């Protein structure tokens, strides 16, 4: 009998189904059906609510392709994503290297935790905290004027750099985390061997360390680029009037203009862009796994 139960439990969807069904049903209702509905609605003239007349149309998509505004904004968001990702690489990769290869033992653990800790606190609140640092008469302004002999006005608030700073602050822990994981896996003796064969530090970095940590870099870049392209709260708070991006326009369609079909089309175009990016990144990630 016992053997029968054991073999029975190793096979079959039938035993797995009752355990799987609730979770996947929930995901279907709250994620997969909504995403499909969004695609459907994006081809409609009106939402089919309260007996409104609606028809199928391509107008929402032709709006995107014919009006330069949406194109420009999508490009601006892609550029924002690229810039933030680059800054995260520049700032995060060296930090990950120091964590993985210089620090040891308990201090490594403690600092690693300190780096990823803010990441799990409220993103909105962290963006808001920059407002106090960046505004005129804010901390940065006051501190610089206290140190410098001449008077300067620092008012970065409501500017493009403010958006960049806030987003890099939000997402750099991702890059440190993913790079740290791949860098840590590189065997120290490999580095020693290369060095003893006469490779300079720079050569080691270029020929060995960076290629081996590429999966971490790509994973980090994808994890940062994708949400930044779809960001709207950060540009709104830190960018003010200059903070109009693709994400904020989608937000407007849903909460201000109430053109939901257009909003759905814009969201779906963003989803397509995101999927292309993830598809491009996946070969590098698969090679690592």
């Amino acid at each position, binding site marked *: 009998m*016992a053997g029968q139960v054991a073999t029975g439990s190793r096979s079959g969807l039938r035993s797995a189904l009752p355990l799987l069904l609730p979770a996947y049903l929930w995901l279907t209702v709250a*994620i997969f*059906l909504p*995403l499909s509905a969004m695609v459907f609605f994006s081809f409609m003239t009106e939402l089919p609510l309260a007996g409104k007349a609606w028809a199928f149309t391509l107008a929402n998509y032709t709006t995107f392709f014919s009006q330069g505004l949406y194109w420009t904004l999508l490009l601006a968001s892609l550029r924002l994503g690229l810039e933030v990702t680059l800054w995260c690489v520049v700032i995060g990769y060296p930090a990950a290297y120091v964590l993985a290869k210089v620090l040891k033992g308990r201090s490594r653990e403690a600092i690693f935790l300190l780096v990823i800790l*803010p990441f*799990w606190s409220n993103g909105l*609140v*962290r963006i808001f905290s920059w407002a106090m640092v960046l505004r005129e008469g804010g901390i940065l302004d006051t501190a610089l004027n206290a140190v410098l002999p001449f008077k300067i006005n620092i008012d970065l608030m409501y500017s493009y750099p403010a958006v960049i700073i806030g987003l890099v*602050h939000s997402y750099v822990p991702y890059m440190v985390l993913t790079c740290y994981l791949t860098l840590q896996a590189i065997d120290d003796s490999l580095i020693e061997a290369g060095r003893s064969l006469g490779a300079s530090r720079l050569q080691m970095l270029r020929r060995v360390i960076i290629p081996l940590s590429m999966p971490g870099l790509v994973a980090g870049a994808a994890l940062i680029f994708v949400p930044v392209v779809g960001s709207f709260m950060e540009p709104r708070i830190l960018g003010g009037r200059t903070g109009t991006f693709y994400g904020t326009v989608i937000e407007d369609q*849903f909460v201000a203009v109430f053109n939901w079909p257009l909003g759905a089309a814009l969201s779906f175009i963003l989803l397509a862009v995101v999927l292309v990016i993830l598809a491009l990144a996946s070969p590098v990630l698969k090679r690592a796994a």
Partner: protein
Amino acid sequence: MATTRILEWLGRLYIWLLLAFLYLPIIIMALMSFNVSPFYQLPFEWTTEWYASLWQNDQLISATWNSLEIAIITTIICVVLGAAASLALFRYEFRGKKFLQALLFPPIAIPWLITGTAMLIFFFGVGIGRGLFAILLGHVALALPYVIVVVSARLQTFVPELEEAARSLGANQWQVTSRVTLPWIMPGVIAGGLFAFAVSFDQFVVSYFLSTPGQTTLPVEIYAAIRKGFTPEINAVSTIIIVVSMALMLLTARFFKFGGEK
């Protein structure tokens, strides 16, 4: 070797600079929440006035209760559904298993702006509408994949022979699960639960699209207040949130490590 030492020293310095960059705005916000001037003017004068006035702010208080309620219910549902699904994915072999596992990634990888607006459209279309129930539906869906990933990671360290040993000693399927398997995955379940709580409690984007003026969560309320203008009360409540969620993450890290060692 002198260069090595200098480089190492520079590396350490660099890490501390990064930590300063990460924590400075948060520390300044916390300090300003104790400052008399509502416009963040220096010199600094100590007050707890803003924390006191939080208690008078009914809107913020009711939003906080909503956030806590939703986060707790989300955690319970996610832990139960997530642990069940992880067990099934671990224990059984069947066709389409890889596909089911791959399905966990879209909710994590797709920007919340897209998921949130899609939920808004769909819930409106099928008559669920907006409000706290819709927010709960959304939060569970967002947090569930994280819980399944975390619990599955813990299950990787499980030895299936333990279950067989228990069976050969006469335990039935329910006893095997409750006395052998569940205790083993408990650290993963607790870590997953803390993740779920954090995902829900900090969630802004999806809640934003699904909330109505009366039925809203704390982050949505904070966003509305920020857009109206800076208020020192928001500093105070933000500081509380940051401290609570960091404490929660420290707890999670403890359980994670606990999971990794044993």
